[in-house]
């Protein structure tokens, strides 16, 4: 059995090397090797829902240092559909992205976007918003689409339940997710090229989470996601489930916290042991003129910036900040879509730069100091620090003055 395991490791499309571990918190800095290129973690993955990152070309995305981004199975499965994408040499070929792609299973969109007909053991039945036809998204179907997309990391189809729901439905969904994981593993035609991640469920119930963790970690998957969170639940419950999960996930496999992207959340959850993150927030908020900065955010469209001739962040190295002033961007929002693209570029640069700094501080052994400096910059005073963040950081031995 041992020799079979090592053999399969050699063929594995994923390898994780822990480069540094923070001696104070649970943070790690790792080198994640995936089929298209290496990824340095902790990593933030921008979301390119429909096979495009909202007005940014793949060259620009590469130039920003992005090593992995997301595509959505639900959206792409609808339009243009898996057959066409397969003809185009997978999603990589279709959008001409040479680095890594992660696709989610479509499960979350089932809950958040679509008129749900029914969730059964078979899968999720829903009505297509484009032609009203009833479609069944089963674990097999989701994996089949993701196989056609050819992503480097695929997510299992999970039975998604909102984090604000409690009671027996949560338990049912957790157990079903385990069964669906097994079906996904069986359905994966490309296990030598595509990595299938499990998604830990269990809502905000520690017992259920533990059961899920115990079960899913017995499956031979290359990575784990922490799901069912980041959906409007109390932050105090949120961080406790994150840290519980990382406590029981194997050290040598990546931990992906889904749907997390606010700066504070990223830094805290790195401290709690997470390696990978995704969120639409930075790119979505950019289109509304909201620029992310170390001291919070800057609403470029507001009147106060009309005559502000500084760049968004004088210390930011992105093209937007090197070339343009807040005043120009403010004015440009009234005449051209390029204004949105400028902010999108900046926000991605901000997120990636933040993660690079986080990683560097872990490697250099000064992550706790980094956290303190980061929090001081972001919040004008100590009493404005979010309580949950203070508690979460305290739980991993970081006290904020």
């Amino acid at each position, binding site marked *: 059995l041992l020799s079979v395991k090592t053999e399969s490791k050699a063929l594995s499309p994923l390898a994780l090397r822990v480069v540094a571990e923070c001696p104070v918190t649970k943070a790690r800095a790792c080198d994640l090797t995936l089929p298209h290129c290496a990824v340095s973690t902790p990593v933030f993955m921008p979301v390119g829902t429909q096979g495009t990152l909202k007005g940014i*070309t793949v060259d620009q995305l590469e130039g920003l240092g992005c090593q992995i981004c997301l595509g959505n199975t639900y959206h792409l499965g609808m339009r*243009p559909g898996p057959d*066409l994408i397969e*003809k185009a040499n997978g999603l990589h070929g279709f959008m001409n992205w040479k680095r890594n792609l992660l696709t989610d299973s479509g499960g979350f969109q089932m809950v958040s976007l679509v008129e749900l007909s029914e969730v059964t053991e078979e899968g999720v039945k829903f009505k297509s918003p484009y032609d009203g036809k009833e479609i069944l998204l089963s674990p097999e179907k989701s994996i089949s689409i993701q196989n056609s997309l050819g992503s480097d990391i695929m997510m299992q189809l999970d039975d998604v339940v909102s984090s604000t729901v409690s009671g027996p439905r949560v338990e049912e969904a957790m157990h079903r997710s385990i069964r669906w994981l097994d079906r996904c593993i069986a359905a994966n035609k490309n296990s030598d090229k595509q990595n299938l991640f499990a998604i830990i469920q269990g809502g905000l119930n520690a017992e259920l989470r533990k059961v899920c963790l115990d079960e899913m970690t017995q499956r031979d998957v290359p990575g784990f996601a922490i799901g069912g969170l980041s959906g409007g639940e109390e932050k105090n419950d949120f961080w406790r489930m994150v840290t519980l999960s990382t406590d029981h996930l194997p050290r040598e496999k990546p931990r992906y916290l889904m749907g997390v992207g606010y700066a504070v959340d990223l830094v805290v959850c790195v401290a709690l042991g997470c390696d990978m993150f995704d969120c639409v927030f930075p790119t979505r908020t950019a289109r509304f003129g909201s620029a992310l900065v170390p001291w919070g955010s800057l609403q470029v469209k507001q009147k106060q910036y009309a005559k502000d001739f500084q760049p968004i962040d004088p210390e930011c190295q992105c093209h937007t900040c090197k070339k343009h002033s807040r005043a*120009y961007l403010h*004015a440009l929002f*009234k005449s*051209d879509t*390029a204004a949105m693209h400028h902010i999108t570029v900046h926000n991605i640069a901000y997120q990636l730069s933040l993660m690079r700094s986080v990683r560097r501080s872990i490697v250099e052994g000064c992550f706790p100091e980094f956290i303190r400096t980061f929090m001081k910059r972001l919040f004008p005073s100590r009493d404005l620090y979010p309580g949950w963040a203070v508690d979460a950081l305290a739980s991993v031995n970081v006290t904020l003055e």
Partner: protein
Amino acid sequence: MAGSRMKLELSRVVQGRGRLGVLKELGKTGQCSLEVPGCLLHTHLGTVPHLTQETLRTLSNLPSVTQVTLSNIAEHQEVLEEFKDGVTKFAGLHDTVLYCSLHDPATPCPTGYTTNKTVSVWGSGGRIELTVAKFMALQKTVQPDWYQSMADGETWLNNTSRKRVRKSVDRTLAHLDECLLVHQQSQELEGVEVFGVVEGGDILEERVRSSRETAKRPVAGFCLDGLQTGSMDQALRTQLITAVTKELPEDKPRLLQGVGRPDEVLACVEAGVDLFESFFPFQVTERGCALSFSFDISLDPELAVLELDEERGTSGETQQNGDLNPDDQSLMTSFEINLKDQRYKDDFRPLVEGCVCYCCQNHQRAYLHHLLVTNELLAGVLLMIHNTAHYHAFFSALREALANDKLDVLKTRVLGESGGRQKDLTDTDKSE
């Protein structure tokens, strides 16, 4: 002092066949030049629509003159006054010559608001009325290298009365004289050049009068206004431009406003126009289309005709060129392909075979189709890159054709037998 530092050096002038040359000593430093026939780089406040400087830089051989318009700028007067360093710096541009026009040629504006003393532009917050004083105050904050003088060009609607046309000529001359007066007294406008604007609607005598009178003023060149796409058919436009250019000095450039379609450009070059505004690629982009017409004159003419037939197939539609609705600039032309069409869903070729733009080098029609169907922002970016590259390459080919006596070959290539007629966006013709 207004006048002319820019120099038009013509290398070829053939009556009825156009002029070829270089417009030199442009810009305050006098270092820039622009080949003619050529076009200016159309922008919104200094930004080529949809493009950041990063994506713009994937394009080479762009015009050295950037066009901005008061319709985008007027509402920012206060900001620019505080900024003090002009629009070029405000927009983060370098090494470009800045030309400031009154209206945005891509967006026709409402009529009926012009008075004897004012014209209006429409910004994001609504109408802004300009007197000559305000117009000139704006020029001082914009700090262009050259600008068109304030003009009343509201003669492009059907049934504009003779009286109204005459008024537009009179007003425009009066505005020009006032502008020049202020200009000469303004130190801030030292070294900046002014173009006079020729009006006259569709009335030959008024056109001649306007040209003669404008030519008497110390301007660096001439804008031809009120002739935009949709205002009249090309035959009349050619007739009027021919008459106008007869009255204008040979050694000063003629800039035609509001005309950008390839067939119209060719005809107007033959009539004596030197410069155009490059808003057409933007309009094509906005309707989800890609410029695809050929302007390759290096082919064997016989081969070219065969290829042409193959490309166009039996399109069958015979729509009039003449009765165009100027308000409906969304009508597709025969110079472009409509990428939203189902036929491109699984077409994995580049937009145009052989095109070296970033879009054609990196993406396929099927991908553009997907982006358009899903309403993704990247569609605009990629299409704008391609359409801009294609359009400016067309102008390059035009200059080459003029230099080598191949204008007829170019015309056949570009116009084919159809002569560039319009078609519906839902057109499912069998060409392509």
